């Protein structure tokens, strides 16, 4: 159509759209006018008024049908149809608020669960940092000759790689991350997690500052030039209130003066989007503030740097691989004593980078896939529920459909209209579901991870999550709407006028029953998975830890942050312990470098006198902890043989160690380890004597075999860079002890920030401890309960409708003398088929998915009998209870009423 023509017709179409009541009235008037004239014509021909009128109507073919055809002729534009259907659909939904509420709520639960879980999975696997062209940025890892991966490099390594990789990388930068520093501004001091970066770091990343400047490539490596600090955005907002006057301010980092020159942009958290870097400083300053060793720049053995690099345009991580391997070989040949150059790999940035193990992303993806599947199952159950509801309602509207069909509406239009109704329902459910999902993920984001690391737990609802939710809604709409629509429009007016409202054809009843069987099966599967996770959690929690975490409080401090050197630090700690022990209620107090299942795990390579590792095995390794003498008493780790440390074991005394049973068994099998010696590969000069053996205890993970573990005296192995945890055993709760202990610390060192205060039991729920198990069990249980609720509603609905369908039949039976008990049995028999079928299906489905789930279970088999039987019993009980109400109602039917009821 030509433009002016279209413009002319537009008002007409709009009028049909918005004033269709008026338009309809006009149509009515027009046709009646025609009838009048036709009647007159016939009367003029000699017919009676009545006959003429009848004849005129016959000629027209029925006024309503004619109107319908006119309306269709007017609707040249399908949008008008669509809007008409929408308005009609809305009206229908408004008319039955109960049905609409239940359906929308059911769908909202399903969609909400999915979006919440998807946002978490998105956070873990799909989110990339908000920097320029993130797909080009990679982090490097090297693989050593023993097959293990490491993402730590030395500065000379960094220089070599930077110089030799110019064909694949356009820029290579290094950073020393996650340094816990003390920041002191205007007299206030706090903890800041900082990253020391090379000058070209920000240029390589490609971000602009939110305020002030970022570290420039001209930043050198000398400790004296450019002592500058760039703040992280979230840290700046939280601790400086977003005050723009911070630029140019002087501050102290670990006692050394710096100038704050700018703030990093919003949304940039460092190379890893999971952890928030709170400050950035030039790498050169690390030699001063982080005491990284004055030879940071030249020491090839100090592997503390993470290397990130931007690929040249057109180069992918895979295509860069050969070049990197060549570089690795070259370095291996040049420096044969460093045995970590089997190959060099570049990883694309992801939420978990820098990753040290290439398997980690796969594990995380697997977990994500598992929970998405479970959530998808809940959504399917919700769909089944709503489909059932719609089917039930469709049978109530059969008459309406049949009459409309008879009046001239054709089947495709009816189907389209029913589909639009279900689309409306799902859209409403989608909106509600997104709101629910947002609330759920907000709640998830507020979970205390029991770590002092600043995790970035913002599960943003970005476009990916919204499109996922919308996609789920559309699929739901189709699934839910298609069956009822097809069925409803097959209605035949003649048959229907002789039937009652809830009398459905057997076909429809069978469909509904099948749907409910699927629901029961799905719900059972969810329950079984939930049960497995819960039992796994219980198992892990009840495991014998080997120490007693009850009544132990932890206070973590980093002496280094006040600027103390090593001598001052040891002094401080030596004075601290007696003062803490003197506090009322304290039974014992000790210091330790690490806590069990904390985020730090210390290890040392060993050279054991008289022990040769079997050929092919790498050098012996053991985990270690540096502790003060009262440690074993505080943690209640039983001593098996020999002795623990004494105060007399000082810095000048013979280096000693206490080992655990696993180490004794592995390296001195059958012999007495007491009095034997070994050395650490970091410090081959000092030979360490074994003086005691303690019971095995859990140090790294709550499950798995016990690994060799060494305890050494803190005074002999003090590392000023590392934090130290003061642990005390007291019957008083944390709340009352907190102040006292912090005051005691501050009485000795007023500027010492206390990083973390927690109960030992609380910290066991941390990331390396029970937390993942708890989250897994919690999520699975929630989904299981949701599924159970949905299945219950489904069973109730179908049995209820089936019972009312047979009211007539029941009435007859009872009139003929059947006992109420027999009626009950009849109802229950139908229910039994449904529930039984569902149980069989559910057990089968659970068995199929068991292998996937089994990867995440500890101490529980995927086919654990107790869980399966328990879940089956729960489902059976709940389902049969859901049948009880309709069954009783059927039993109480009065035969006279039933017979009359049609």
């Amino acid at each position: 159509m030509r433009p002016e023509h279209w413009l002319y017709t537009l008002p007409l179409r709009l009028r049909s759209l918005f004033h269709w009541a008026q338009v309809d009235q006009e149509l009515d008037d027009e046709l009646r006018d025609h009838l009048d004239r036709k009647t007159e014509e016939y009367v003029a021909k000699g017919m009676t008024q009545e006959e003429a009128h009848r004849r005129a109507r016959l000629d027209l073919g029925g006024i309503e049908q004619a109107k319908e055809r006119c309306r269709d002729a007017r609707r040249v534009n399908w949008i008008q149809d669509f809007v008409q259907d929408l308005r009609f659909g809305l009206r229908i939904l408004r008319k039955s608020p109960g049905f609409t509420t239940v359906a929308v709520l059911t769908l909202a639960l399903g969609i909400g669960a999915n979006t919440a879980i998807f946002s978490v999975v998105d956070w873990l696997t799909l989110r990339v940092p908000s920097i320029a062209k993130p797909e080009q940025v990679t982090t490097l890892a090297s693989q050593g000759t023993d097959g293990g991966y490491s993402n730590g490099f030395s500065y000379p390594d960094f220089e070599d790689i930077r110089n030799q990789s110019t064909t694949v990388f356009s820029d290579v930068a290094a950073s020393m991350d996650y340094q816990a520093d003390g920041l002191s501004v205007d007299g206030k001091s706090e903890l800041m997690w900082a990253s020391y970066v090379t000058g070209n770091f920000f240029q390589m990343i490609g971000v602009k500052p939110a305020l002030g400047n970022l570290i420039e490539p001209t930043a050198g490596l000398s400790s004296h030039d450019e002592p500058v600090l760039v703040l992280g955005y979230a840290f700046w907002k939280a601790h400086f209130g977003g005050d723009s006057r911070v630029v140019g301010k002087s501050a102290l980092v670990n006692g050394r003066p710096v100038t704050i020159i700018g703030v990093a942009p919003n949304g940039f958290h460092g190379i890893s989007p999971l952890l928030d870097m709170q400050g950035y400083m030039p790498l050169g300053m690390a030699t001063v503030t982080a005491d990284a060793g004055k030879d940071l720049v030249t020491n090839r053995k100090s592997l503390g740097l993470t290397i990130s690099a931007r690929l040249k345009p057109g180069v992918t991580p895979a295509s860069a691989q050969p070049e990197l391997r060549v570089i690795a070989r070259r370095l291996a040949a040049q420096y044969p004593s460093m045995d970590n150059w089997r190959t060099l790999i570049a990883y694309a940035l992801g939420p978990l980078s820098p990753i040290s193990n290439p398997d980690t992303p796969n594990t995380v993806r697997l977990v994500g896939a598992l929970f998405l599947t479970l959530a998808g199952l809940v959504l399917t159950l919700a769909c089944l529920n709503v489909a059932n509801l719609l089917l039930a309602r469709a049978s109530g509207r059969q008459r309406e459909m049949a009459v409309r069909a008879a009046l001239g509406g054709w089947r495709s239009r009816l189907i389209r209209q029913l589909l639009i109704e279900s689309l409306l329902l799902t859209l409403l459910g989608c909106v509600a579901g997104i709101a629910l999902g947002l609330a759920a993920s907000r709640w998830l984001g507020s979970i205390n991870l029991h770590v002092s690391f600043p995790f970035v737990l913002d599960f943003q609802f970005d476009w990916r999550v919204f499109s996922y939710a919308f996609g789920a809604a559309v699929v739901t709409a189709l699934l839910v709407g298609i069956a009822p629509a097809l069925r409803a429009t097959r209605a035949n007016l003649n048959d229907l006028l002789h039937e009652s409202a809830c009398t459905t054809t057997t076909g429809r009843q069978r469909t509904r029953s099948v749907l409910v069987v699927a629901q029961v099966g799905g719900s059972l599967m969810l329950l079984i998975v939930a049960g497995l996770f819960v039992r796994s959690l219980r198992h892990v929690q009840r495991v014998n830890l080997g120490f007693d975490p009850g009544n132990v409080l932890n206070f973590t401090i980093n002496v280094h942050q006040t600027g103390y050197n090593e001598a001052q630090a040891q002094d401080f700690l030596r004075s601290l312990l007696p003062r803490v022990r003197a506090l009322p209620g304290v039974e014992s107090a000790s210091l330790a470098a690490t806590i069990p299942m904390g985020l730090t795990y210390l290890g040392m390579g060993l050279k054991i006198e008289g022990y040769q590792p079997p050929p092919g095995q790498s050098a012996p390794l053991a985990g270690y902890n540096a502790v003060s003498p009262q440690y074993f008493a505080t943690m209640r780790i039983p001593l098996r043989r020999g002795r623990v440390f004494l105060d007399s074991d000082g810095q000048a005394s013979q280096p000693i160690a206490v080992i655990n049973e696993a180490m004794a068994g592995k390296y001195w099998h059958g012999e007495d380890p007491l009095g034997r010696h070994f050395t650490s590969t970091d410090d081959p000069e000092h030979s360490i004597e074994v003086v005691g053996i303690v019971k095995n205890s859990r140090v790294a993970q709550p499950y798995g075999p016990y690994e060799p573990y060494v305890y050494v005296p803190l005074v002999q192995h003090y590392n000023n860079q590392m934090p130290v945890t003061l642990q005390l055993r007291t019957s008083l709760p944390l709340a009352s002890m907190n102040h006292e202990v912090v005051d005691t610390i501050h009485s000795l060192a007023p500027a010492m920030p206390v990083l973390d205060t927690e109960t030992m039991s609380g910290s066991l729920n941390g990331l390396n401890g029970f937390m993942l198990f708890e989250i897994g069990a919690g999520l699975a249980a929630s989904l299981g309960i949701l599924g159970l609720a949905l299945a219950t509603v489904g069973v109730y609905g179908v049995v209820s409708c089936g019972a009312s369908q047979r009211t007539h039949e029941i009435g007859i039976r009872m009139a003929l003398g059947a006992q109420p008990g027999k009626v009950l049995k009849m109802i229950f028999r139908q229910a039994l088929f449904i529930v039984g079928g569902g149980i069989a299906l559910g057990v089968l489905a659970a068995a199929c998915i068991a292998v996937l789930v089994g990867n995440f279970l500890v101490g529980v088999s995927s086919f654990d009998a107790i869980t399966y039987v328990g879940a089956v019993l729960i489902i059976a009980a709940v389902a049969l209870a859901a049948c009880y109400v309709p069954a009783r109602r059927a039993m109480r039917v009065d035969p006279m009423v039933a017979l009359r009821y049609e």
Partner: protein
Amino acid sequence: MLVSVTEDMEMSKPSDLVQGTLDMLLLKILVLEPMNGFAISQRLKQVSGDVLQVSDGSLYPALHKLEQEGWIKAEWKTSEYGRRAKYYSLIRLGRRQLEKEADNWGRLSSAISRVVKLKEA
């Protein structure tokens, strides 16, 4: 649909050809003066010598479609009976459409004639 009443024949199946033809006929009738639906069908019957009759059930949908397409416009006037009645009239765009369709029809009918008049071998 459009009915050709020569010997009380049955209604034939509607086809695109016939529908388009009906539109053209209606437009043509409206060339002279505005009319309402009843009058249009009367005039068509009269002018074609009772050969062409439109069934009432098809007339109004056709008229409404023409109105929707923007070739005719409608006005509500008081009829001679004192009631409101809807009168259709042709507008400029409709005239152009009519010409176009009349041309097509001419071409089509002469082509058909040529085929029909083929001498048998």
